[in-house]
């Protein structure tokens, strides 16, 4: 660790990085020491960067035989006490879903980057999309809650990667960074904090004699294998001590409700967004990820025309910040939801607005083309 500190400190503070590089370096700074992945556009650069960097800091990066094995190895690594991550895109994200549910059920902290591309299926592998928004919430089977972060710049790719690890460790749950082809591939000047300036949260370790690693507390302490705790980890319904109870309704309710509550009860703390003029606007915009990069110009132009516009840019998509959306809906006459899909968060916004404001989707898919400020402006003035 001391060696790593020295190495980081010799780096300049202002950097010209690719999104993938920012993600990889942030992971290293926050203490990630294991990466397993499978090549896929547009996420491969994260694997390539970590393959070079992790051994330098004593960590391991391995290319597995597929995405299922990748997240499996990440989960195994996490149970040795390490911070671990994987990175993929739509097709690989689909393959990882069973294990994401397993990580949720077994309370295994880990970080999964989904650099979205245009789907379904192989779709347009090199082109940007936002079609995995609902998958990041409901991708695996069963009752669960997910934490999903959505960066809109290289700077945020860095910051939200740090945050993703911190949330994963704090709540003992998988955290998804829902990036996209554009944010992952583009280069921007960023200011990376030095190691000492980064807040790092580590999972709570059990004390000698502790046995309930799957309950009693909202977020139980987590032992590592090989520490003598005889921890029994299972994706089947289990009691506080990890013992399988596959028919008892009460054990299932107690476990699955706690797993969901530990996220939903802390929605306010987890939620993060940027908002502007939501108290006093006629038109509202709700956006996230790459799409949110065009709202600023559109808002400026609308204001020049004398239209009052406010926006909420979601930095965390799930849990969904209903309260702030509702606040906006109470003021605005119309809320526009631009997305590079055929409408996903739009439905969540409409449900939250519940008739208080007219909610309009603004969608575009294919070719990685963004929604332009002009297109957004046209919708604002309509």
């Amino acid at each position, binding site marked *: 660790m001391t060696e790593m500190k020295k190495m980081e400190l010799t780096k300049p503070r202002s950097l010209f990085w690719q999104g993938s590089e920012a993600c990889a370096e942030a992971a290293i700074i926050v203490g990630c020491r294991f990466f*397993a992945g499978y090549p896929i556009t547009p996420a491969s650069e994260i694997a390539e960067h970590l393959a070079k960097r992790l051994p*330098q800091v004593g960590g391991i990066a391995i290319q597995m035989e597929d995405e299922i*094995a990748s997240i499996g190895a990440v989960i195994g690594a996490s149970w040795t006490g390490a911070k671990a991550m994987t990175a993929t895109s739509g097709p690989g994200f689909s393959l990882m879903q069973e294990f994401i549910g397993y990580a949720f059920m077994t309370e295994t902290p880990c970080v999964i980057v989904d650099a979205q591309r245009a789907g379904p299926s192989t779709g347009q592998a090199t082109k940007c999309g936002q079609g995995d928004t609902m998958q990041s919430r409901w991708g695996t089977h069963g009752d669960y809650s997910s934490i999903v972060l959505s960066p809109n710049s290289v700077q945020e790719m860095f910051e939200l990667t740090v945050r993703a690890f911190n949330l994963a460790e704090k709540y003992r749950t998988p955290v998804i960074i829902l990036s996209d082809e554009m944010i992952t591939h583009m280069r921007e000047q960023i200011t990376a904090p030095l190691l000492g300036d980064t807040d790092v949260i580590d999972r709570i370790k059990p004390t000698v004699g502790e046995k309930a690693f799957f309950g009693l507390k909202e977020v139980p302490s987590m032992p590592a294998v090989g520490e003598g705790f005889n921890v*029994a*980890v299972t*994706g089947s319904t289990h009691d506080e001590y990890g013992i399988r109870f596959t028919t008892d309704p009460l054990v299932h309710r107690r476990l699955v409700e706690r797993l969901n509550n530990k996220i939903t009860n802390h929605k306010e703390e987890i939620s993060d967004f940027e908002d502007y003029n939501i108290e006093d606007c006629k038109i509202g915009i709700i956006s996230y990820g790459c799409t949110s990069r065009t709202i600023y110009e559109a808002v400026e132009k609308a204001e020049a025309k004398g239209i009052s516009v406010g926006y909420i840019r979601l930095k965390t998509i799930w849990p969904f910040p209903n309260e702030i959306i509702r606040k906006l809906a109470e003021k605005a006459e119309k809320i526009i939801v631009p997305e590079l899909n055929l409408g996903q968060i739009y439905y969540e916004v409409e449900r939250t607005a519940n008739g208080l404001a007219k909610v309009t989707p603004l969608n575009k898919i294919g070719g990685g083309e963004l929604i332009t400020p002009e297109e957004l402006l046209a919708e604002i003035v309509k």
Partner: protein
Amino acid sequence: MVKVFSIRRYLRDLKLPFCAGCGIFTVMNAFLKSVHELEYENLSDFVFCSGIGCSSWISSPYFIADSIHTPHGRSIPVATGIKLLRPDLNVVVFGGDGDIVSIGLSHFIHAARRNLDILVIMINNMVYGMTGGQVAPTTPFKIKTATTPYGSFEQPLDAAKLAVTAGASYSARWTTSHQNELKESIKKTLQLKGFRFIEVLSQCPTAYGRKAGFRKVGEMLRWFTENAISVRQAEKIGEKELERNIVIGEFVDRRRPTIVENIYAMIEEVQRNTRQN
């Protein structure tokens, strides 16, 4: 050292879920006896990974040990993450034929190719037992199962041979009728490095025997004993003859560089070079 072997020493005080006459008891006993004879007072040096299926319940949660019960077929990837970061721990995978060489087959091949330092014990009952006796990639040709009511129309997979081709350091096959050989094989492999694979042909009186015509456990164990031939004997006879036999013994026992050795040598070199620069 504890002189008298007591299986209870290593087991949680829980009722085991296996059917009467199940071969899993034999494998569980052979494994824990091996551990006992190697003078492990407890299982604290081990981590067990298993997937889904009856065999995956051997270690989870019955062993007083760290055990990870993974999704179906995915025990080996999880074991990979553990072993790479904790090379000092003895990582053992238990699984059935469906888990290891059907849904999890590619992980099995790649772990053998990497020569990942784990011991995989596959209990091959030639059927999907837990789900009610459906055909498996290990079911012999023409055997009736719940999903092949007219008999299996596929050829079974030879997992022990496949492990050799894939690059395993050690591969052996035994049956539940060969308890001593099995125990000695486990004892030996627990002290070796690299990818070690032990396949145990086992009886499932509930799901396999019922349809395949083995009404009693004894009949199946006798069938194992009577049809087992050694690897050496098998080399001398033709392929057609082999179809009626179960080849048992060690298919390979060799020393090859392991992924753990290679990866840590690389990290050391990278760190040395990084420091110099």
